[in-house]
């Protein structure tokens, strides 16, 4: 239990702090980044750039490891197929992201910043996830 939760809570906390420092929990800044044809705010490109650079180094280390430091093995996605579902789902996600300037991580992080607004967004997001779950007939 402790072993299963310590790494995720450390990662989640650092993740949430990084989202907040980078401006991802400020919907106006996110929508400013998405306002490419208007008053574009490039800040989020720096957020994504910094995160991708660090993770690229982590992937290089991962290839040299036989197993993770605190788990029995790696559980990583290995699919490579481009499906209508992937593209349609991502297209929908972008629309929702653009409407309110929130994606899942900042939605949860914002529970500590604007609890009422964030709770409405998170509840609706979970309801949307439930819709997919029920459509798939696994509910």
């Amino acid at each position, binding site marked *: 239990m402790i072993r299963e939760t310590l790494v995720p809570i450390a990662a989640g906390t650092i993740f949430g*702090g990084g989202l907040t420092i980078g401006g991802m929990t400020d919907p106006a800044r996110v929508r400013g980044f998405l306002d490419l044809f208007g008053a574009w*705010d490039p800040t989020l490109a720096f957020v994504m750039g910094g995160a991708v650079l660090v993770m690229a180094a982590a992937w290089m280390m991962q290839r040299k490891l036989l197993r993770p430091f605190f788990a029995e093995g790696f559980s990583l996605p290995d699919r490579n197929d481009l499906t209508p579902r992937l593209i349609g*789902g991502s297209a929908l996600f972008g629309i929702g992201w653009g*409407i309110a300037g929130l994606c899942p991580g900042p939605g949860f992080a914002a529970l500590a910043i604007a609890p009422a607004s964030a709770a409405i*967004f998170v509840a609706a997001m979970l309801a*949307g996830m439930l819709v997919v779950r029920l459509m798939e007939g696994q509910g």
Partner: protein
Amino acid sequence: MTLPGFPEAAPLAGLAGGVLIGLAAAIMLLGAGRIAGVSGIAARAFGLADGSMPRAGAWAFVIGLPLGALLVTGLTEAPRPSFADPVTLVIAGLIVGIGTRLGSGCTSGHGVCGMSRLSQRSLVAVATFMATGFATVAAMNALGIGVSP
């Protein structure tokens, strides 16, 4: 520091936040052997997705997100951001929830973890959700639809 031509931009804060996000994703990858994809982990925590991740671990990650935000806002005096009105938040949240499950990921899983691995699926997913994100904001601005409360 500001960017010439972009008075609103905060490149150093963005970079610092991004490095922390990357570090967090690296801890998940090298420590737990998993992708730090928030939509997938959240779905797992709330029992809305199958998967091998222990639910206690999924909950721990999800709880960490506001914890980290609380630490940062407690230590800094940043102005409080404003959020969309409740109806807009419900509409956006529903679409984000459906889209991220169908698309198998969001800004963190596809964006941070997948792009850095040059995953073909993630590169296509990111290009797609960026394009529709740009288009959505452009369309809302053109139609004069604001999202302030």
